């Protein structure tokens, strides 16, 4: 076996240390969630979580699932059109679809609240959360769908068309099954981001009176930050997200994340 040279050891040491620094806030929340005020370890904090927390977790999960499904439904045709056809004003369309990703969350949330008060009055309910998340996370889903379509060779579709399949049939039976794994990266990222979305949900909580799980955690931090049950709440939300990421990596692996969040 070849002995690793000095520079390799230093490289690994550096990467491990920096990774550790990134993980510190998350790890420390987990440790804190098992600590009692006396400094001993126990799971009593988890029993201290108020019953109102669980419906909010369920609500956040539902919102995340709605967001993923609706985003998939609306971005697949858009990504198909953007990758397969050339048309006038393509970059303007792309800018309209992607622009929201570059707008600071606080400004986006304020603009939505103003529009909900003045134009879309029906959105001062759970519907408001859904449209906010669907529009806000459209760019990340669109990006991964576009990458998936670009990687798919056009010749499959051409072959189906040559064999007499109609446009819709080709799309349903050839294109869609082939890009399936590729768009999974968009599904996972949209799920994680919308489940944990904080700032827009925090601002919408006022006018709508609906609290999602992350907003509830923030509320508890500001009112009772020193208590262990808050750490337990935060740890549960992190655990759900990490489980989803872990399962995704176990089943699909990292290859479809390349070009989107990996380099």
């Amino acid at each position, binding site marked *: 076996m070849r002995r690793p040279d000095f520079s390799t050891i230093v490289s690994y040491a550096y990467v491990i240390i920096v990774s550790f620094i990134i993980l510190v*806030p998350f790890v420390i929340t987990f440790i804190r969630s098992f600590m009692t005020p006396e400094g001993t370890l126990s799971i009593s904090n988890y029993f201290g979580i108020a019953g109102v927390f669980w419906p909010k977790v369920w609500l956040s999960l539902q919102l995340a699932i709605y967001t993923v499904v609706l985003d998939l439904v609306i971005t697949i045709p858009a990504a198909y059109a953007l990758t397969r056809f050339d048309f006038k004003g393509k970059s303007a369309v792309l800018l309209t679809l992607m622009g929201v*990703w570059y707008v600071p969350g606080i400004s986006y949330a304020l603009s939505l609240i103003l529009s909900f008060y003045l134009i879309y009055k029906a959105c001062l309910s759970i519907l408001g959360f859904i*449209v906010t998340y669907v529009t806000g996370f459209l760019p990340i889903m669109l990006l991964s769908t576009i990458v998936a379509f670009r990687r798919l060779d056009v010749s499959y579709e051409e072959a189906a068309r040559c064999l007499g399949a109609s446009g819709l049939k080709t799309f349903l039976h050839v294109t869609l099954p082939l890009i399936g794994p590729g768009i999974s990266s968009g599904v996972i990222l949209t799920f994680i981001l919308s489940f944990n979305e904080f700032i827009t949900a925090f601002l919408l909580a006022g006018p709508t009176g609906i609290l999602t799980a992350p907003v509830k*955690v923030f509320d508890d931090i500001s009112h009772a930050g020193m208590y262990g049950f808050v750490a337990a709440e935060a740890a549960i939300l992190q655990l759900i997200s990490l489980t989803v990421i872990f399962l995704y990596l176990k089943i699909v692996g990292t290859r479809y994340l390349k070009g989107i969040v990996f*380099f």
Partner: protein
Amino acid sequence: MLPALLMALLFFVVPFVLLFYVSFTEGSSYFFNPIFTLDNYVKAFTDHLPDFRNTLVLASLGATIDVILGYPYAYLLNRKIRKLGDFFRTILLIPLLGELYIAYGLWWLFLPTGPLAPILECFGISSFALLYTPFSAAVALAIYTFPFSVLQMGINLSQIDPVYEEAASCLGAGRFSRFLHVLLPLSLPGLMSGWFMAFGWNIGAYAIPALMGGVIIGQRVLSIQIRAIGLLMMNYGLAAALASTLIMIALVFMFASLKVSRGTLI
């Protein structure tokens, strides 16, 4: 394509235009009969200039830490680390869980009764010197935006052929001059775009400044002020003016980032 475009038009473009429009009206007069005024912007650039300064200083501190720590990270993942490379990349996914958890975790870590205090006392630093200072907020912001800047720098570095460095090495350049005269000029666009991207995300953060001292008078940042002025004091005109200015700043930096790097979205 139509449904997606419709969503983006209805819930991004229309509210955006509305926000801009409201920013020229006085107080919350827009809801009754709008009184048009430029006063909001005058106030934004006079009374709220310290908030802008605080926001920009914090965001650039965070972005600078990101670039300093992230550049070697991106380089090593590209060139040196073969085994476990995907494991380290996966770790970069974790800050995507959001600023809230980062803020909460570090808040407890930096508390005078927290776990870091005894270690700091050993070095003679007071345990009260950390929390609610720009330093703690900048560290939290740096962790939050680390993946974004590493991604920009990593994409750029992966496009640079290692042949250039090998050629320089063959011609007798040492480690340091290879870095200074070959790698750094070639990867400068990635470095800049990483900084811009981190900066653009940092100025919109809310939970981190809220828990790390951004609420204290004199250290307030824009995101806190926008919520306080708009939703608590009901001065929607001024809040909209601040929010519009924040959007403009973010857009300038994000597009600068994309312009220099021609990289991916986030």
